[in-house]
């Protein structure tokens, strides 16, 4: 059986720099022979022998299931390309700006002929740093492309300032918590950043599972403070907020996301380059916990407890009310407000916030945090987001099968991607899986080493419900 031909899918909005990237890949001397299927005509040197133009065409089934939709144009062109497989090493598919990556990916799992000759390598999304926030707010396809991606290439970074760049990255992270973000200007990328990533190769995915499975958290920021016993003043609506509303346009147009209590802001989609006012956050989750130690390690060891407590509904706190440690609170924000934090004893304390402090002008009167850490944003310009689960308890393979089977049946259309490494009871090897919509691929892989056996799962999709996913996971514990 000859090696399957790897296929990279390049997505990206109009203006993201796909053509520049493609021309680079075709003209640079990197020793790889690449056949390109181009859905957007006319911009790339078509006289190149291995550039093939094909008009995008969706083959839908009579039952209308989007998970069964495949791309007829790719089936047709790749069936010809496989007849000359000794002439190229890799296929690159350049989709149109508005293409849905789902059917492209599904084609390689559903079509029986393509499956035999081709293997999906990775879905790469090229993103325009200057316009991404506005695109995510306005066009669902942009969020879908980001959500589907195995790698996000953040292009045109030379055209934005640091704050815009950070905002763009937060917006990407909010949707896709696992794909590495590679910054670039003028699409100047080593070819290794685009080809040969092996994102759909279960064996290879494992070799870098620490990065690909860093679980998203329901909070964005933790600060560690050395505080005395008694009452401390928490302060919201500080000047910071008003000075930096420019930093907040990524809030626009989002919809309330399951599991998060955001208010929807419907105040239009203004040009992100012009500073503009917008509705401020109305509520924010807060939790105070005793730190097992000072510094980053103290933060690290409290993460799972904090995640667990954040999963319960927050107790509503109006300005002026008192807050006690260990209780997930929802602060009602109303401009400039104060809350009282009552601490039973002196020591190292963690303040855990649903949103970064800068976003609602948060400060604690007294010492600055000795250590602080930011976590992936869960702001939503789109209803697409990531949910991660980390848990060491061994699972029952039969129950996992039932749960994932049910999940794919009931939520397959909403789940864009899922990936995971599972700890099966009594099984020396890791179970590794990934999925695209309702297509699922999983197998037992190399043994757990001396390290901790821990389940890690990430779901990227539309309107995902953390509680539903956690309850499902819970049902699988052996």
């Amino acid at each position, binding site marked *: 059986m000859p090696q399957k031909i790897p296929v990279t899918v390049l997505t990206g909005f109009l203006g993201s720099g796909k053509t520049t990237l493609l021309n680079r890949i075709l003209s640079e001397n990197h020793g790889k022979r690449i056949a390109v299927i181009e859905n957007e005509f*006319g911009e790339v040197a078509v006289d190149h*022998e291995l550039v093939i*133009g094909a008009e995008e065409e969706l083959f839908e089934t009579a039952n209308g299931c989007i998970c069964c939709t*495949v791309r*007829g144009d790719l089936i*047709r062109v790749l069936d*010809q390309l496989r*007849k*000359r497989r000794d002439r190229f090493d890799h296929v690159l598919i350049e989709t149109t700006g508005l293409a849905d990556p789902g059917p492209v990916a599904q084609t390689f799992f559903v079509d*029986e002929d393509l499956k035999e000759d081709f293997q999906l390598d990775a879905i790469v999304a090229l993103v325009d740093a200057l316009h991404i926030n506005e695109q995510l707010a306005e066009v669902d396809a942009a969020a879908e492309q980001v959500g589907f991606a195995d790698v996000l290439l953040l292009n045109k970074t030379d055209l934005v300032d640091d704050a815009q760049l950070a905002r763009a990255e937060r917006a990407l992270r909010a949707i896709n918590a696992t794909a590495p973000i590679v910054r670039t200007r003028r699409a100047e990328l080593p070819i290794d950043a685009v080809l040969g990533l092996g994102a759909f190769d279960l064996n290879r995915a494992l070799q870098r599972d620490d990065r690909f499975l860093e679980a998203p958290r329901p909070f964005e920021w933790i600060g560690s403070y050395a505080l005395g016993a008694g009452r401390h003043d928490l302060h919201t609506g500080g000047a910071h907020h008003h000075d930096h509303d420019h930093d907040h346009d990524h809030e626009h147009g989002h919809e309330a996301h399951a599991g998060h209590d955001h208010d929807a802001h419907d105040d239009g989609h203004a040009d992100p380059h012009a500073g503009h006012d917008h509705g401020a956050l109305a509520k924010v989750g807060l939790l105070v916990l005793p730190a097992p130690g000072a510094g980053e390690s103290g933060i690290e060891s409290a993460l799972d407890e904090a995640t667990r407590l954040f999963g319960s509904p927050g107790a509503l706190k109006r300005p002026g009310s008192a807050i006690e440690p260990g209780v997930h609170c929802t602060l009602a924000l109303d401009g400039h407000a104060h809350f009282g934090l009552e601490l039973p004893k002196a020591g190292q304390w963690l303040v855990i916030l649903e949103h970064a402090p800068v976003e609602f002008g948060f400060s604690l009167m007294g010492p600055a945090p000795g250590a602080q850490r930011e976590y992936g944003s869960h702001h939503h310009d789109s209803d697409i987001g990531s949910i991660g689960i980390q848990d060491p308890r061994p699972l029952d393979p039969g129950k996992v099968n039932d749960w994932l089977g049910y999940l794919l049946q009931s939520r397959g259309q909403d789940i864009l991607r899922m990936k995971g490494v599972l700890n099966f009871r009594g099984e020396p090897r890791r179970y590794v899986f990934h999925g695209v919509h309702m297509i699922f691929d999983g197998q037992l892989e190399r043994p757990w080493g001396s390290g901790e056996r821990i389940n890690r799962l990430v779901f990227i999709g539309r309107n995902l419900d953390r509680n539903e996913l956690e309850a499902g996971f819970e049902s699988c514990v052996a």
Partner: protein
Amino acid sequence: MSSASQPRLQRRVRILLGEYPVDATFSPDGRTLLVGDGAGTLQLLDVASSALQPLGVHAGGVLAVAWQPGGKLIASSGQDGEVRLADARTRESRLLSKAAGWSERLAFAPQGKLLAVGSGRTLRVYGSDGIERTSPLQQPGAINAMAWRPKGLELATLGNGGARLHRLGSSAGASGAAASVETVEHAHAGACLTASWSPDGRVLASGLQEGSVQFWNIGANTKSQMRGYGTKVALTSFSANSRLLATGADQAIVVWDFSGGGPEGSEPLQLSTHTARLTQLAFQPQGPLLASGARDHRVALWRPGVATDPVDADLLAGELALLRWSADGRWLAAGDSTGQLSVYEVALK
């Protein structure tokens, strides 16, 4: 069945092209095989002498070839975006069209006076003089398959969403005349992949991506569908007597019988011998035999309805890439993915 009357595959030619044979067709007299390969070379194989003669090149690879029924014209298309028309005798060729997209479908009308060219979603119809007979006809989707109705001037194009029948006016065959075209829609949900007319011209059949076969009885204006295939149906072929339709999905050959009230309500015949996905399926013109080929490197010869096992088979060096019968049903050409080309004489021993 006595072995004395058993049809056999007798190999008369074996040559190494060295390139993947993409498409091939016999000359109307069956003496010459035109073959186009993945390197782009068009060659004429003289069956009697095994001699190869070059005919031309499509840079990047050949996509399709066709030979004018009863004539000497050869149409070819390639990954260079070109469609060429050549004279098999003089081997001179002319460019019909060149475009960025591929022209993957070529079909001469039964009388040989018209050539249909499908490029993506565009259908063009040329006269044998190389002049377009109509303005380009835009289809709703890419043309996945097309076939002229036996006898007459009707062309079926099939793709995502069903079939379309294009009736060309009777002046279409005449030199220099522009033709009227009447298009009849035969819509169907799903993506049609193949086009097979029953030789009597009554039924048009197509295999679908979602694992079913669609039939249109054009005369009676009825249609029906057969489901239950586990994978897409990429192969269909009608028997010479219009009675049987062979379909291929995955490793199994499923044959529907149109006699009596069939195929609705009838159990299809299932023929299995292949151990990997089928790649080719072709009923013998003017005969009862069916040839099949698969990724298991094997070519098999069947007599559907008479025997459930292959009546003969041969093992090739690679996956079966193409199978073509000569018009009289005497010769069968088989090419494999290693670039080996064989021509069998199919004889009753």
